């Protein structure tokens, strides 16, 4: 994981740590209640599948992590400045138990308040696919036009 922030900016460091802790607890450790302790009850949700509020977030992820034993998140890079934390992540085995699942590539955008609690969230998500079926949102079996993968660092 690459962390992109000014390490002297204590607000950004705190907020980044809060979001990494959130992912690890809510998804990888399957403790959604504990993992959302730094989320406001009135959290505004822009992901179209979830209702507003911390409780809706807990319900959504509790269901998935209980149903899908392999479900997990890998954070590849994270940037934080001011009240915002943005993370580029791979959500794996959320919708299938196939060990070869390449999952969903997403960027989450969190807005935090002055106390470091999450108050609003946006995201963009796409199927990661694979080199022979690289853009399933557009069509089947579109080969990848480069050798670089969705997350790797090449420079």
């Amino acid at each position, binding site marked *: 994981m690459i962390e992109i*922030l000014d390490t002297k*900016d204590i607000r950004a460091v705190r907020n980044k740590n809060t979001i990494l802790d959130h992912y690890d607890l809510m998804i990888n450790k399957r403790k959604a209640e504990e993992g959302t302790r730094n989320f406001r009850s009135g959290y505004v949700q822009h992901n179209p599948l979830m209702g507003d509020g911390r409780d809706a977030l807990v319900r959504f992820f509790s269901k998935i992590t209980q149903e899908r034993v392999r479900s997990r998140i890998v954070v590849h890079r994270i*940037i934080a400045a001011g009240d915002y934390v943005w993370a580029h992540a791979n959500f794996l085995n959320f919708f299938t138990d196939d060990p070869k699942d390449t999952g969903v590539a997403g960027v989450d955008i969190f807005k935090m308040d002055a106390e470091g609690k999450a108050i609003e969230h946006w995201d963009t998500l796409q199927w990661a696919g694979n080199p022979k079926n690289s853009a399933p949102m557009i069509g089947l079996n579109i080969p990848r*036009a480069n050798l670089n993968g969705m*997350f790797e660092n090449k420079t």
Partner: protein
Amino acid sequence: MIEILDTNDSRAVRNKNNILELYELMINTKKSEEGTAKHVRPGYIQHNPLIPDGSVALGQFFGRITRERARARVVVHKVIAVGDYVWAHVNFLNLFNDEPGDTGIAGVDIYKMDAEGKAVEHWDTLQFVGEPKNSAPMLGPNIPRANPNGMF
């Protein structure tokens, strides 16, 4: 548009301005090849699965779309810049159709810049925006939106 950066960080300010100008040239003013030649290194590493490596391939990709689609445009909603990175939350509109009511694609672009402020690597995540009655076309048709907040 919300700009998220330390305005005392001259590198971040420059990089952010370069990416905003890249969008404007490459898409909104339909000067794709000019924009990519100005702000993107020839050896640009591309992670978007539909586009090959390099600044020339990027200019050609958007050159073709912006010539074919008269309404093609991008609206940048938020941009964050720190160090060598610029990330932008954007809405690509009318890249694949000419419908005035198109809701387009929601994306986050991640650019890594070099010391001179040119883009050297790019990742993105993209999804169709849909609309409140068909809010998650990547998962299935006609899934209603669970909140009243929109994508941006």
